[in-house]
């Protein structure tokens, strides 16, 4: 690391990309709006510059402005200059820009699936990118493509050329995107949230890859991200943006250890830190970042569980062929058992496809499932919708995307009132009062209840969803990635609200999340899921401080820490992909055995344990 930084200083004299006073304007229904306002940056060869900021900070607009890829005709650069290797890019014609893009300056995007053409082979897409800039024959282009894939460590590169994007996993697709972007050896690579859509172990692999590319080819990288952990792992220098303006910029250590601007300090304070709650029982209370108060320890000893799950199994049929017969089955959840006690937060963590969301939906009876679920004394298996209705007063759900889970054609007041109306709990004047009370409870102005969801910010919408769930005075709330889509500062506020409601109302949360740092902060107990099964469950302190299962250890290792002094070089150990839970019809899941390794701390000793 030190030698690399030294090298940066040596080359500091000649930046490869210089931006001065960049101003970008977007036409909105309410007139033109400046979304990037006076941005300056210098990017040196072999340097990683992170542009960090929350949604609406203008970080993506900055990259699109540099690439000349602003959405036409709504957005345009209205001032400033962008020079790449001494060449001015602002005002360059589309034809000239196109010659530079991919050859001199490349970009990769957040969604590797949507940025690849689904009907062309990987090989066709990479050779296309090469042939567009280099006068190479077919065979030569193909050789180059194989080299490009090998450079991003894709195994069996030659065979991959004939595959289509859907045959590859998300992490592989992002590697292909990087291979395409790097195929012509650009001087600058702009990566816009390249790992946001990926699981944390895959994210670690991609970050490691980008570090290597930087070292091997001396490519300068602009990494745009909202994740301060990624910034700390990757950046040499950092630019913090807010509302189109640069708030602060400087070397990564200065930004993290001596932030000058109040905004940067708040942003860093709001970031949940893995390990911040180590050595303590129970969840952290109070503002994250500040020393946690003595948190209430685990709830009173062994009260009757409010939710009891035994041997929960969910399988989805995959039909195919002419007759639409069942050909395969997805074993989404396989023999999961746990209890949730009153006033407790049980977190279910795992990567995409591990069955954590499916478990939540099964609790809500939104999908067909096998096994036993008892909610507040009522067994819910096979209950009709009508019979399930009274049970729903005890268990409610808050979804990941608050905008998608609110009917856009209803006012938020109507939406919050709806559960009360459906269950006949209030009407007329009383209903109005109850709704106003619920709004106050989640700290929204009751006067805002005649507005529609799109008029609110993400955090406010999630508060509406929480108010809606609270209306029925449930004992349990299933929170499915409920804060994942929110900016960190808003995320912290919503988490605070959830903890406060738990203290006041004695709510139990089933907190489904992929974010280990958030889980560490909020939960009493943690269940780690892998391939549809729980592989480790126990008190949060035990699972985080002394993880026993290989997969739990791997998951904890992969989380980028917002601490640039603690960069990890062991990312490379995290090779491998998550296997597919799609099984043939006659597949019989192997039995699973648990070992008790501490009070309430159980670890699977199954054959799966060896795999990850």
């Amino acid at each position, binding site marked *: 690391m030190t030698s690399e930084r030294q090298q940066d200083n040596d080359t500091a004299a000649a930046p490869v990309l210089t931006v001065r006073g960049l101003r970008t304007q977007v036409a909105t*229904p309410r007139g033109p709006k400046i979304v990037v306002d006076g941005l300056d940056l210098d990017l040196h060869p072999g340097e990683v510059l992170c542009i960090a900021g929350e949604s609406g900070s203008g970080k993506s607009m900055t990259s699109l402005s540099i690439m000349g890829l602003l959405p036409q005709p709504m957005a345009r650069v209205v001032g400033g200059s962008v020079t790449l290797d001494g060449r001015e890019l602002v005002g360059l014609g589309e034809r000239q820009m196109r010659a530079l893009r991919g050859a001199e300056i490349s970009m990769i995007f957040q969604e590797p699936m949507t940025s690849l053409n689904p009907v062309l082979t990987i090989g066709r897409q990479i050779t296309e990118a090469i042939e567009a800039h280099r006068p190479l024959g077919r065979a030569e282009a193909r050789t180059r493509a194989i080299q490009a894939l090998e450079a991003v460590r894709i195994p069996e590169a030659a065979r991959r050329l004939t595959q289509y994007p859907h045959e590859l996993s998300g992490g592989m697709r992002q590697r292909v995107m990087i291979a395409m972007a790097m195929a012509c050896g650009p001087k600058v690579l702009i990566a816009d949230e390249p790992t946001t859509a990926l699981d944390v172990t895959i994210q670690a692999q991609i970050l490691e890859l980008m570090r290597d590319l930087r070292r091997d080819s001396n490519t300068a990288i602009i990494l745009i991200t909202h994740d301060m952990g990624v910034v700390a792992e990757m950046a040499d220098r950092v630019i913090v943006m807010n509302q189109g303006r640069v708030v602060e910029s400087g070397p990564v250590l200065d930004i993290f250890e001596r932030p000058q601007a109040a905004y940067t300090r708040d942003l860093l304070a709001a970031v949940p830190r893995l390990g911040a709650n180590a050595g303590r029982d129970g969840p952290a209370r109070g503002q994250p970042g500040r020393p946690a108060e003595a948190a209430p320890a685990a709830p009173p000893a062994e009260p009757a569980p409010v939710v009891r799950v035994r041997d929960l199994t969910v399988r989805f049929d995959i039909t195919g062929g002419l007759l639409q017969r069942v050909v395969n089955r997805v074993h989404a959840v396989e023999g999961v058992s746990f209890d949730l006690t009153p006033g407790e937060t049980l977190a279910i963590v795992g990567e995409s496809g591990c069955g954590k969301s499916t478990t939540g*939906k099964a609790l*809500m009876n*939104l999908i067909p499932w096998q096994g036993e679920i008892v909610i507040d004394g009522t067994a819910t298996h096979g209950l009709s*919708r*009508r019979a*399930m*209705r009274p049970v*729903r*007063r005890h268990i*409610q*759900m808050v*979804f990941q*995307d608050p905008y*998608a*889970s*609110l*009917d*856009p*054609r*209803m*006012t938020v007041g109507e939406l919050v009132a*709806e*559960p009360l109306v*459906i*269950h006949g709990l209030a009407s007329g004047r009383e209903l109005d009062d109850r709704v106003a009370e619920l709004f106050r409870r989640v700290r929204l102005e009751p006067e805002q209840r005649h507005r*529609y969801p*799109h008029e609110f910010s993400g955090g406010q919408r999630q508060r509406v*969803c929480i108010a*809606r*769930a609270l209306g*029925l005075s449930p004992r349990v709330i299933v929170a499915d990635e409920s804060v994942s889509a929110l900016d960190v500062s808003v995320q912290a506020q919503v988490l605070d609200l959830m903890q406060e409601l738990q203290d006041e109302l004695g709510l139990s949360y089933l907190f489904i999340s992929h974010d280990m740092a958030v889980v560490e902060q909020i939960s009493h107990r943690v269940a780690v899921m892998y391939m549809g099964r729980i592989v480790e469950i126990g008190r949060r302190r035990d699972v985080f401080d002394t993880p026993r299962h290989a997969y739990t250890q791997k998951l904890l290792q992969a989380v980028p820490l917002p601490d640039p002094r603690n960069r990890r070089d062991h990312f490379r150990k995290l090779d491998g992909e998550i296997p597919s839970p799609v099984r043939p019809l006659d597949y019989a899941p192997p039995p699973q055995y648990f070992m008790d390794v501490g009070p309430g701390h159980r670890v699977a000793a199954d054959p799966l344990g060896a795999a990850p």
Partner: protein
Amino acid sequence: MSVLGELVRRKLALFGLVVITVVVGAALLSPWITPYPPDQQMFDGLTLEGAPLPPSAQFWLGTDLLGRDLLSRLIEGARTSLVIGVVANGAAVFIGTLVGVTAGFFGGWIGTILMRATDLMMAFPALLLAIVLAALFTPSLWIVALVIAMVNWVQVARVIYTETRSLSERDFIEAEWGIGAGRGRILVRHMIPHLVSIMVVWGTLGIATTVLLEATLSYLGVGVQPPTPSWGNIIFENQTYFTSAPWLVFFPGIAIILLALSFNLVGDALRDILDPTQKGRH
């Protein structure tokens, strides 16, 4: 603000509203406002050689091959075309929505049967079907309207079905099940409002095509029977004389386009007004 108030506030929608009002008014008042009886063949309506007259002070829009006043026939024909365009097309949208929503929302074997039936109807040439149906019943205005509705609901059903299926997958519908909402509430309060925009688009876009379909049927002799005029059959009667007497095709053509356009403008505006996320964005 009321929906009507919002409509009037938008210039284009207001234009559409005015045209529709004029056409509807003319259709209702036609016995009293036509300059001549629409079926009357006038001796001075033809040149000495027996050719139709171009527009003049006496016959504002000219006369047709039989010496009848074109303006009078257009006004009378507005009745037919409105019934066909609005009633027949409205019925098609209604049937299509009913079938599409039922199949999409309830699914199961009912859905399968309904959608297979729809596909079958789609595979069958619409015109042929219309001819068969029209031949079975004695053609009258209402029978023709019914026939057109029977033929045209299919596309609507298909589109509504697809949209219903994709709506069912949306998070907020799942959230509704989660709070314990019943089928009726989800259907009426949360699905139908999202389908209205499609219904409005079909309800307005379909008018022009229905009017033309009626014209085609008239041309084949199974539409509205002469001498009852409709905008469509005026065009078809006279299309061969397009070069020598262009006004005979031009004016009814303009009438159809104006009416269809007006419905489209009003429909577009209605869709925006009914969608709260579009507020203040037009």
